[in-house]
């Protein structure tokens, strides 16, 4: 039997009987002092429980600090403090009151080590303590922890909490937590069946996880109920899994779209086989990195805005590089697409090595702003924020691009030049500039794609390499010169890929997709959305 669990049980029973008035401050300090002498994680754990058992809300501060690894012991007098790092010295705060009591050099104090197990213990302990917290969210969180770590002793405090709970959603959580605790208690089977029904209604993985653990050693009646509950939860979950797969496919598709959309301009519209496309994406990512560095050092408050700030810059940087490439290399090669392939390949090598020499070969850290981290649930569908934002972003970029191409005079000129260069120039369109700007646009878009991709992938000199082939596959599959084709191509490839993955595995899935593309090109040598008719045939 796990030591923590043992202590936990006894102490929580204690806690339940204790009136929630809490112990005297002296007692608390006494207990906290024990941290200094505790050897190893398990002893520290014991102290944590003792502290929690007082049921005094005041212990929240030291415990939380401990969990974050901010609880220190001053070597001189082995007093326990909450530490706050300020540069190279540490500000020592009183563990209970939180007032500043002293400063100390790092060497004069020892951090109280924590590990996962200990954090878990603290989380559970805090859970019981924060049942009565003001913030409903906190109460909910507490209920959730208690659901995940059911314990017969939790029933009374939960009953009390449920009684005075006003917020419906939290109340539901509390009841589920109670039900969980009932299941592990020695209550009569009738209660347990009711509890199972309640938990079955919850219907998520945690519920399954809990029920399976109960199922193992329970009287038949309960067992059956549990098995039944598990069965129908799983059946619903299976349905949700399909949805999850589609979502994964869509989100992969959005990444492909982002990666490919710039190429749809440079390659699709201009017919330049732009092997340096991936490097444009990389430049965008590095721009993001630089922006974040500046923000970190100078305006930390703006961090959440870093991506928004990076976007235009990334566009600019990539667009300028693109412009340079077009003016310097590609304009000499119009009408010879396969040679643009070679030249741009060379450019990509140079760009890669340049970035490697400037920023070094290692990955650079690009942080996720708070609004792009974490996930939320739709039913049983876990949707991560960054994926969602990337999807939104990809689609809006696509929309803007479509507008530029179809509705603006520039777009008109662009299409005119690519349709019939001679005619366009004789109509007074300055084709060289249109070419240059078109290429710059494509590169710029690749750049902003880089900003998004920096959120989910490595920011390293090799970033571009990973996407170049996929991008070409998407554009060719969708049909060169057709933005809609790129859109459809990206999403269909994404979804197919994600549906293959669970069965074929990641590698085989990708291979299958590639083979499918090859075969598809046989069937439709001009891709999905190829224009028919004589003018563009063969």
């Amino acid at each position, binding site marked *: 039997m796990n030591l923590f669990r043992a202590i936990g049980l006894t102490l929580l029973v204690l806690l339940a009987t204790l009136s929630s008035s809490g112990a005297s401050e002296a007692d608390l300090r006494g207990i906290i002092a024990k941290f200094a002498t505790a050897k190893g994680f398990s002893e520290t754990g014991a102290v944590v429980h003792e502290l929690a058992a007082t049921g005094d809300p005041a212990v929240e501060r030291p415990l939380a600090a401990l969990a974050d690894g901010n609880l220190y012991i001053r070597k001189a007098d082995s007093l326990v403090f909450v530490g706050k790092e300020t540069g190279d010295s540490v500000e020592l705060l009183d563990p209970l009151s939180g007032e500043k009591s002293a400063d100390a050099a790092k060497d004069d104090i020892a951090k109280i080590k924590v590990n996962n197990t200990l954090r878990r213990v603290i989380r559970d302990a805090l859970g019981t303590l924060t049942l009565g917290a003001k913030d409903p969210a906190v109460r909910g969180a507490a209920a959730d922890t208690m659901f995940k770590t059911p314990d017969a002793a939790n029933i009374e405090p939960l009953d009390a909490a449920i009684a005075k709970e006003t917020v419906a959603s939290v109340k539901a959580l509390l009841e589920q937590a109670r039900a969980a605790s009932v299941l592990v208690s020695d209550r009569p089977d009738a209660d347990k069946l009711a509890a199972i029904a309640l938990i079955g209604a919850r219907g998520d993985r945690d519920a399954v996880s809990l029920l399976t653990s109960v199922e193992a050693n329970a009287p038949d009646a309960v067992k059956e109920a549990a098995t039944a509950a598990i069965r129908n939860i799983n059946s619903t979950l299976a349905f949700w899994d399909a949805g999850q797969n589609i979502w994964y496919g869509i989100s992969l598709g959005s990444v492909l779209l982002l990666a490919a959309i710039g190429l749809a301009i440079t390659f699709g519209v201009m*017919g330049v*086989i732009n*092997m340096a496309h991936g490097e444009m994406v990389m430049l965008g990512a590095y721009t993001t990195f630089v922006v974040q560095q500046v923000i970190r050092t100078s305006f930390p408050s703006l961090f959440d805005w870093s991506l928004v700030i990076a976007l235009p810059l990334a566009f600019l940087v990539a667009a300028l590089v693109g412009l340079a490439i077009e003016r310097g*290399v590609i*304009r*000499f*090669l*119009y*009408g*010879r*697409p*396969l*040679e*643009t*392939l*070679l*030249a741009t*390949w*060379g*450019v*990509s*090598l*140079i760009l*890669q*090595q*340049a970035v490697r*020499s400037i920023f070094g070969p290692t990955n650079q850290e690009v942080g996720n702003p708070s609004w792009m981290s974490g996930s939320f649930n739709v039913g049983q569908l876990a949707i991560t924020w960054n994926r969602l934002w990337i999807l939104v972003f990809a689609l809006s970029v696509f929309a803007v691009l479509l507008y530029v191409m179809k509705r603006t005079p520039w777009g008109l000129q662009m299409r005119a030049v690519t349709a019939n*260069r*001679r005619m366009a*120039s004789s109509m007074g369109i300055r*084709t*060289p500039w249109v*070419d240059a700007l078109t290429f710059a646009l494509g590169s710029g878009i690749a750049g902003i794609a880089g900003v998004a991709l920096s959120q989910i992938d490595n920011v390293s000199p090799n970033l571009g390499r990973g996407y170049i*082939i996929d991008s*070409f*596959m998407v554009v*060719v599959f969708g049909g*060169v010169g057709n933005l809609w084709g790129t859109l459809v191509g990206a999403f269909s490839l994404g979804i197919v890929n994600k549906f293959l993955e669970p069965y074929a595995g990641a*590698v*085989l899935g*990708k*291979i299958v997709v*590639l*083979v499918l*593309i*090859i*075969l598809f*090109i*046989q*069937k439709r*040598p*001009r*891709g999905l959305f190829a224009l028919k008719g*004589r*003018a563009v*045939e*063969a």
Partner: protein
Amino acid sequence: MITGRFFAAGADRRIAITIFMLLAVAIIVPLLNLVVSPTSAFYVPSYIVALTGKYLCYALLALALDLVWGYCGILSLGHGAFFALGGYAMGMYLMRQIGSRGVYGNPILPDFMVFLNYKELPWFWYGFDHFWVAAIMVLAVPGLLAFVFGWFAFRSRVTGVYLSIITQAMTYALLLAFFRNDMGFGGNNGLTDFKDILGFNVQADATRSALFAASAVMLALAVFVTWAIVGSKYGKLLMAVRDAESRTRFLGWRAENVKLFAFTVSAVMAGIAGALYVPQVGIINPGEFEPSNSIEVVIWAAVGGRGTIVGPIVGALLVNAGKSWFTGVLPEFWLFALGGLFVAVTLLLPKGIIGMWDSWRGNARALRAASAAEEAGTYVDPAPPKIVRAAARTPGEWSSSNPEPQPAE
């Protein structure tokens, strides 16, 4: 009559000289390595033999690519795949030759199979303990893949960019496939730790020299064959397909078959190159399938001069010599150099070194062979008529854009 043409004057003499030189090298270098004493100034160290032997294999690969790219306008970005497949066929033979000398001393199973606890040999490894089986596979596997791939692609008239991209997809798919350990080809580590070939120790200087000679002779043979093909009526047809595919169709030629033949022959040549390459470098692994490798081959051919026979060989030798030199002397700058080379060659040397040389010499016949237009590379204003003209004589271009004149309707 082929031999008749062989000794004819003109640019054919260059072929003769090349073949002669290759054969000479095949004899001399081994001698200088084996007979001459290490102290002598003429001594060729084994390290150079191994290195140049490798270059010769690359040269053969480049020549193979040039047959389809330079003469038929098919820019294959997947030739590395044929090279690698040939290499794997040879590698499998060499693995079987290790026998019980592997670290686990298993007489049948190669080491990687032992620790992935294979119980018996996968079926596709059968027979590879015989050299002749391996030899056949070296030709058959790449040839067959090329035939099937080309049969589909050319029949459904996939051309130019699309063809290039799907050849790339092909080699990329193979790359991923061979990376899988479940494939039974040693996964990422590939096949290595070879002991001997035909009973001779692969490490021995004599064997190295022999392999070197074999590569040189094989290259000479390939030069002869390519030259014979290109010189024949079929060769003319090949270029005709490159320059005006639909015209050949309307003359009753099956352009797809014309391409298919060249593509298959070229793949087989690439396979042979791979087979000679593996015992000399002592390892074959999925890295050879990297699309970037195939693209590098293209630049060798471009540097030397596509649409010529000698060009790709010169290009392969130069670029690789440069690579060995750079990665030794200025490691950090190797990629800059290579990248710069790509750009410079496409912009300034559209015909490659040989082509430049010829046009500089004003050699009329070579002008025909190296059909990349000079002005294509150096003119600045992309005015349409010029493009058309430039394009009209740029091999790569024809395959990519439709040679068929578009009615003005």
